[in-house]
């Protein structure tokens, strides 16, 4: 872009004005969108009323919102100390004639001109006075004072406002201000495609509008080249998609200035639609409009060269036919450029009459010549790897899916060949995308590129032994096979399901699915702890039977003893000691029972010492008495 711009600049000064095309304009679609944006904006301040009313004016609509905006300004009188709101209110009134009288402000506004003011305040004051219908002459404000102030403030915005203010003055010499335009314009920053002032949209918009108004006022052309005007225009176009009311207004203000002036009207050559050129749509149609998508004086549009994507250039130098609507120009492209493909079409324009519209050179437009593709002579075969002989060959017919299931293993290759033809003239063609897609049973996709061996003759060869690890992870199984064909100039791109392939690979697939990956973002399966199963026990009947049986000796002991003549008649001999001893003994056993049921060892030992002591002493006494008796 850079060298082209420099070249164009040099050429531009040498002969008639030359500029590049804008490439884009505020299309009717954009205008509708912006109109919507303004309409749905609630009017909640005088600033908004100003943006919306003026924005809609440029977009060619006033009546719908007039009532609402008028009623707002009728209800909201600006504060006499806030100059900007006076400006907004009077501007809206001047536009809509809402029958609000602002003449009471005239005196205070004129008085305020006498005190120290900055450029922006002067702009508000002078604009407001003009809106009211009062003239501001040299005595009140001289152009040289404006210039001095702008120079002091050193900002592009001040210069822009100074230009705007000067264009409203009743008299005074504006030459020195006109002379600064050139110095201001060169301060623009460059982006790859446009130029703009450092302050951004508000500054750039104000400056450009100021320059145009100043020129219109003086009737002389400001020192701004058509190229600069176009590059500024491109900057405003880059912001046309805004959704902010103030930005939309600043874009429209500048765009209107660039569209409606006598000095430099940037124009754009745009494609009417983006449909490809083909047998049904043989004409290349372009619009030549100004930045607001309005007609400009008729021009002669020439098709200079046409360059194919492979770099072949054809010089044509023939004129477009202009259509009756004044903006559309067409050229019958199809017979000339028969071979399908992508092209760069280079146009130039030349105004038929002297006009502010510059001559456009080297307007580059992308054009696609499209065709319908057909697949022919398609077949798929399984080839024995060692002998290189086809074991099985199946012919394929687009768009049907083959019912034969082909099988291949590591000793064979899968080979598919097909021809791609232009449907109209049956010539063989190459396209950008010819992919073979294999989808496994678990939805893994593997792609291969079918390459042309000659123009239009495509081959796809799959050597199973080589591809096993790299592409298939040795995963044997049935794969669904499709052929995807597409290209920039293909009218009918398609994805053709060819059939299924049964592939057998040696080796085992590498298992990539770790638990960590599988459950990375999912709940894991629940785990219930498995408690150790209790040991198996005999049935309670058995244990209870034995429990009864083990009690039998005790139960039987007393009757059997009685039967055998057992007695305790000697108990009287040992007297109370015997009773104590036996009670103690029974107590000890009772304690053991309690130990089993509830007591712990320490409690048990405590009681046992007491009971044991008593039992020991009484037992000793008892035995002594028995022994005494026996020895007696």
């Amino acid at each position, binding site marked *: 872009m850079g060298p082209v711009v420099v070249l164009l600049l040099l050429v531009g000064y040498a002969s008639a004005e030359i500029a590049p095309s804008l490439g884009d304009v505020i299309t009717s679609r954009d205008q509708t*969108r912006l109109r919507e944006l303004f309409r749905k904006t609630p009017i909640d301040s005088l600033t908004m009323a100003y943006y919306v009313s003026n924005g809609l004016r440029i977009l060619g609509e006033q009546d719908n919102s007039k009532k609402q905006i008028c009623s707002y300004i009728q209800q909201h009188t600006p504060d006499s100390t806030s100059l900007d709101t006076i400006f907004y209110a009077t501007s809206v009134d001047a536009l809509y004639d809402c029958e609000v009288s602002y003449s009471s402000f005239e005196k205070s506004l004129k008085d305020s001109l006498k005190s120290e003011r900055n450029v922006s305040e002067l702009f508000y004051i002078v604009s407001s006075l003009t809106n009211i219908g009062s003239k501001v002459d040299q005595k009140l404000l001289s152009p040289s004072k404006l210039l001095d102030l702008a120079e002091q403030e050193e900002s592009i915005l001040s210069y822009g406002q100074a230009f705007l203010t000067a264009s409203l003055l009743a008299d005074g010499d504006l030459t020195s201000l006109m002379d600064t335009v050139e110095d201001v314009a060169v301060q623009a920053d460059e982006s790859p495609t446009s130029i703009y002032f450092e302050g951004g949209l508000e500054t750039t918009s104000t400056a450009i509008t100021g320059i145009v108004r100043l020129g219109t006022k003086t009737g002389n052309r400001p020192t701004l080249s058509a190229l600069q005007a176009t590059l500024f225009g491109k900057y405003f176009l880059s912001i046309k998609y*805004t959704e902010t009311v103030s930005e939309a207004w600043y874009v429209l203000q500048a765009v209107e200035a660039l569209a409606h002036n006598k000095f430099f009207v940037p124009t754009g050559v745009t494609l009417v639609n983006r449909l490809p050129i083909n047998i049904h749509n043989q004409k290349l149609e372009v619009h030549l409009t100004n930045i607001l998508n309005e007609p400009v004086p008729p021009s002669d549009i020439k098709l200079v060269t046409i360059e194919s994507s492979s770099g072949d250039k054809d010089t044509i130098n023939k004129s477009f036919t202009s259509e009756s609507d004044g903006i559309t120009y067409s050229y019958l492209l199809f017979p000339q450029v028969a071979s399908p493909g*992508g092209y760069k079409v280079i146009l130039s324009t030349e105004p038929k009459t002297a006009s502010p519209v510059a001559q456009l050179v080297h307007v580059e437009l992308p054009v696609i010549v499209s065709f319908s593709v057909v697949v022919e002579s398609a077949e798929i075969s399984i080839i024995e790897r060692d002998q290189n002989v086809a074991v099985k060959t199946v012919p394929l017919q687009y768009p049907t899916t083959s019912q034969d299931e082909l099988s291949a293993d590591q000793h064979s290759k899968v080979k598919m060949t097909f021809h791609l033809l232009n449907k109209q003239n049956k010539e063989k063609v190459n396209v950008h*995308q010819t992919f073979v897609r294999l989808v496994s049973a678990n939805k893994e996709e593997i*792609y291969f590129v079918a390459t042309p061996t000659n123009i239009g003759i495509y081959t796809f060869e799959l050597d199973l032994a080589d591809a096993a690890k790299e592409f298939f992870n040795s995963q044997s199984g049935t794969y669904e096979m499709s052929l*995807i064909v597409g290209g*920039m100039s293909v009218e009918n791109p398609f*994805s053709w399901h060819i059939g299924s392939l049964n592939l057998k690979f040696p080796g085992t697939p590498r298992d990539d699915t770790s638990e960590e990956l599988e459950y990375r973002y999912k709940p894991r399966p629940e785990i219930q702890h498995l408690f150790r199963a209790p040991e198996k026990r005999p049935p309670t009947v058995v244990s209870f039977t034995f429990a009864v049986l083990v009690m039998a*000796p005790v139960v039987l002991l007393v009757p059997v003893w009685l039967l055998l003549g057992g007695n305790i008649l000697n108990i009287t001999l040992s007297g109370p000691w015997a009773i104590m001893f036996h009670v103690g003994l029974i107590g000890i056993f009772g304690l053991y029972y309690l130990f089993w049921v509830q007591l712990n060892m320490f409690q048990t030992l405590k009681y046992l010492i007491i009971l044991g002591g008593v039992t020991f002493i009484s037992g000793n006494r008892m035995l002594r008495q028995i022994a005494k008796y026996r020895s007696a």
Partner: protein
Amino acid sequence: TRFPPHSTQRNKMESFKWVLVLLSLISASTGSKSGKKTLVLLENLSIKETHSVFFSDLISRDYQLVFKLADDSNLALSKYGEYLYDHLIIFAPSVEEFGGSVDMMALTDFVDHGGNILVAASSDVGDILRDFAMEIGIEPDERETAVIDHLNYDINDRGDHTLLVVDPSNLINAPLIVGKKTNIPILYQGLGLVADPDNPLVLEIMTGYTTSYSYSPTRSIEDYPHAVGKSTLLVAGLQARNNARVVFSGSIDLFSNEFFASPVQKSQVGSKEYQQNGNRALSEALTQWVFKEIGILKIGEVKHHLQGDNEPPAAYTVMDDVYYYIEIQELVEGMWVSFTASDVQLEFFRIDPFVRTFLNKTSDGKAYYAKFKLPDVYGVFQFKVDYRRLGYTHLFSATQMSVRPLEHTQYERFIDSAYPYYLSAFSMMIGVVLFSFVFLHFRDPNERKKKDN
């Protein structure tokens, strides 16, 4: 006295000053956290205007945006070891090197310190963005390439079929990241990415179609394309282990005013036209996610004890019935509210999980609980909640406690099958008592006769 009276006065003043300094420090540090200060690196200043809707959407959500040119020689992410920004937006696709002290290391350090980054590239991708992408497990294609799809391009495409109409079915199934499910397509034009298969943290936020591929639109295909089919990534994301988030979009136009305002319709005959595309909604959802407005979880109180108790014991015994309670909170519009999900799991863990169970919501809805029986295995265990879901920050809580075996008194006392043993013991005792009577006090009738005689 040893100290003059005014000295204590001065000490008081001194400490009061310190308190003031401390207070101001605290307020300063919390202030910078809530300010959502975001550095925006721009390739040139006009991007600020071509993407103004995106930026004003952010500003209306209380982001404090600091715009800087990417090659500004005073760029710095941190000063005196403190990070100056919470988030970073890089809208400088073709920049080869950033200015100042910002380089690849600075970017990765920023992420390591919890900073979030939104990067938008384009077909004209610069080296620094490529290096950064590789660092986070995303491999962008070469310069001058674009994602191409001959079957799914927009009618306003300029002839190279790179202006893709992406159906919402190509978005990751995570409403937190990409917003509510809709059927409105998204416009995309730009670079193709591939996820590094060895990096499990990469999220495939938006992918291409099975017919998509990434290649130079002007050259015929000679090498195997960098990305083909569904594995062609359009927008990739990453949530690092420290929960810092990165979104890498291969298209800067995705966020532009032009794309936001464009209607969308696939070029194939009979495709539906949408007056409004899904780009603005997607970019809102993406920024909400990447800048951590949503999908943030934190853990509140964690308790555990025996069922019917209130305090945790010094140790549990095997097979105790325990109660576990955890509060989980989610950040919703700047407020912490209790988090609701049905798939939060608790693991009772010792080397391997012994129990894994879903947590139930408590009746007041504030927290989660689980009741279960401890396994019959003793050792040092953890109550572990490890909640990792798409779009949410990683939630992890582990509480350690020990489980000991049964005491000797805690075993079963009266076993049915042991009754013969119990009874024979008692039978023996009764026998001894009876025997002691008879043995000690037996009077031999013959002996009596003898005596009598």
